[in-house]
C-alpha cells in the first residue's frame, strides 16, 4: 500500500534533518559549554545558599524544603524553557530568511515537515542531555530526594519541545526579528520570574494564583519539583503534562502550516 511506503520514506527523511543539526552542533558546541555548566553552580550558590540563608533565618522551610532545595529543581525547568526559546526564534528566522539554509534543504528530497520534525527532534535530544546534566547538578546540591528523578530528563525534554514548537512555527512566518525582543521582555522574562520559580504559588494572593497557573512554565516547574522530591499526587501531574503536550502538539500543527508556506510559496 502506498501510504505505508510514504511514511517509511518520511521517517528516514526527518532523521537526515536531525543529523544535519547534530553535525552542526558537534562543530560549534564548545563555545557555550563552559558557560552552561558554570551558570547553574553560580545561580545555586548565590540564590540557593545566599538568599536561602536569609529565608531559612526568617521563615524556616519552604513547602517542607530548605530554600536551596526548593529552588534547585526549578532551574531545570527554566533552563529547558530557555533552550526552547533561544534555539527557535533567531536561528529559525535565519534559516528561512537571512541565510536561507532551510530553503536549500527544501530543494532536496526533504519536505517542510521533515525539516520541522528534524529540528524539534534535535532540540528534544539536546534537552534530554541538558536535563540529565542538570539533574546531576541538582543532586550535587542535595535536592534530589526520590527515584522519580529518573523522569526528569523526559520532563525537561517535554518543556523544551512545548516552548520550541510554537516558537518555531511563529518564527517561520516572521518577516523580521522586531517582535522577538518584545516576546522576551513581556512574556519570557516575566514567566521566568513569576511562575512560582523562586517562591511557592501560595505566596501570591488567592486571586492571582489562577493567573500564575496560566503560565506554561508554572506547569513545568511544578512537574520538576514533584519528580525531584517524589511528592504530589498523580492527577495534578497528569494535568501539567497535558498542558505541555497540548502546547507542543499545537505548535507542531501550526509549524507545519507556516513552514510549508514559507518554503514552498
Amino acid at each position: 500500500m502506498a501510504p505505508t511506503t510514504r511514511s517509511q520514506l518520511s521517517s528516514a527523511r526527518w532523521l537526515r534533518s536531525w543529523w544535519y543539526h547534530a553535525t552542526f552542533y558537534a562543530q560549534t558546541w564548545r563555545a557555550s559549554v563552559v558557560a552552561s555548566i558554570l551558570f547553574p553552580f553560580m545561580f545555586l550558590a548565590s540564590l540557593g545558599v545566599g538568599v536561602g540563608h536569609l529565608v531559612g533565618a526568617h521563615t524556616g522551610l519552604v513547602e517542607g524544603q530548605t530554600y536551596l532545595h526548593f529552588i534547585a529543581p526549578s532551574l531545570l525547568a527554566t533552563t529547558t524553557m530557555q533552550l526552547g526559546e533561544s534555539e527557535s526564534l533567531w536561528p529559525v528566522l535565519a534559516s528561512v530568511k537571512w541565510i536561507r539554509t532551510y530553503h536549500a534543504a527544501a530543494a532536496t528530497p526533504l519536505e517542510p515537515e521533515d525539516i520541522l520534525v528534524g529540528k524539534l527532534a534535535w532540540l528534544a535530544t539536546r534537552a534530554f542531555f541538558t536535563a540529565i546534566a542538570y539533574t546531576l547538578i541538582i543532586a550535587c546540591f542535595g535536592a534530589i530526594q526520590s527515584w522519580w528523578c529518573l523522569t526528569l530528563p523526559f520532563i525537561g525534554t517535554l518543556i523544551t519541545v512545548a516552548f520550541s514548537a510554537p516558537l518555531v512555527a511563529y518564527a517561520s512566518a516572521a518577516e523580521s526579528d522586531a517582535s522577538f525582543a518584545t516576546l522576551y521582555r513581556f512574556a519570557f522574562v516575566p514567566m521566568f520570574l513569576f511562575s512560582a520559580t523562586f517562591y511557592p504559588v501560595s505566596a501570591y494572593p488567592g486571586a492571582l494564583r489562577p493567573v500564575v497557573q496560566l503560565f506554561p512554565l508554572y506547569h513545568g516547574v511544578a512537574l520538576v519539583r514533584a519528580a525531584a522530591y517524589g511528592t504530589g499526587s498523580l492527577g495534578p501531574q497528569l494535568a501539567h503534562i497535558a498542558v505541555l503536550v497540548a502546547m507542543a502538539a499545537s505548535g507542531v500543527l501550526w509549524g507545519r502550516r507556516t513552514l510549508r508556506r514559507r518554503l514552498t510559496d
Partner: protein
Amino acid sequence: MTAERVVEARHLVKRFGSFEAVKGIDVAIDRGESFGFLGPNGAGKTSTMRMMSAVSQPTEGTITIFGLDPRTDGPDIRRRLGVVAQEDSLELELSVRLNLEMFGRYFDLPRRVVRERVDELLDFAQLTERADDKVDNLSGGMKRRLTIARGLINQPEILILDEPTTGLDPQARHLLWDRLYRLKREGVTLIITTHYMDEAEQLCDRLVVMDRGTIVAEGAPRTLIERYSTREVVELRFSTDDHEEFHSRLSPFAERVEVLPDRVLLYVNEGDETLMEIHAAGITPSSALVRRSSLEDVFLHLTGRTLTD
C-alpha cells in the same frame, strides 16, 4: 532517435495573492539541453524555476519533471535535481568540506560515497586548497562555486541555476561559465535563469525570453537574433539632453531605430557603411560604435525595454 523530455509545463500559472507572477507559460526541455530563461528582474523567472525545482506548486496548469508529478512525487523528483538558488545559503561558520558533506546527508548518500564525491567536487569547484577554511572567509566567486558544487552532490540529471553569476566580477563569471560548460559536456541538463544576455548567449542551446510573467519568444540564441534583429547595430550618442529628436533624421538610414535615454540604436546589415552614410549626410554624433546584434536587441525589439530597466 527522439530526445527524452525531462521537463514539460503546460499553461503554468503562479499567483501570490492577487499578483500573477507567471501567466500561463508552456515550456518543454529535453535531456542534455542547456535551457535558458532570459528576462529582467520581476519577469517571473524565479517563480518558474521554483516550480521546476518541485519546491513550489503551480496555481494553475500542469508540470511534469522526469514524467513525474511534483504534487505527489516531490521527494523522488528532487532526489534527481540539483538546485542553485540566487542566494548561496551556505553554513558560513562551517568548513567548505563540511558544507558539502552535510548536504550529502540530505540525500541519504552513504558516508563513503559522500567523501569520494566531496573530493571530486572540491576539485571541480577549484576549492581543494580551501577545503578546511570557514566559508565566511571565501570570496563571492568561491562561495558561488561551492554552492554549485553542493548542488551536484547527488549527481543530478538536471542542474537548475537561478542567476548564477549575478554579483560576480568578470573573471569569476568566466571561471564559473567554464565549469558549467564542463557539466554540459558531461551530459547534465542545465536550466539557467539570467538577466545577462551574454550569459544566455554563451551558455544556452535554447532559451525563452520572459517579460512580465509571459514568454515573448523562444528559440536558439542565434535564431532569435536573426529573427528579431538585424545583423549589426550602430550605437550613436549625441551631445543632447533628448536623443528622441534624432529619431526621424536617422530613420532613413536603418531598418529600425530605437531611442534610449542615453543613445540611439540603428538596426542595419552593414554598420560601417551606414556610419559613413550618416557622416556624409552631415550628422555628427559625439560617439559611434558598430557591433553585432545580441539578445539584448531581441528583448528591446520585443518589449520596448532594456533588460536592465
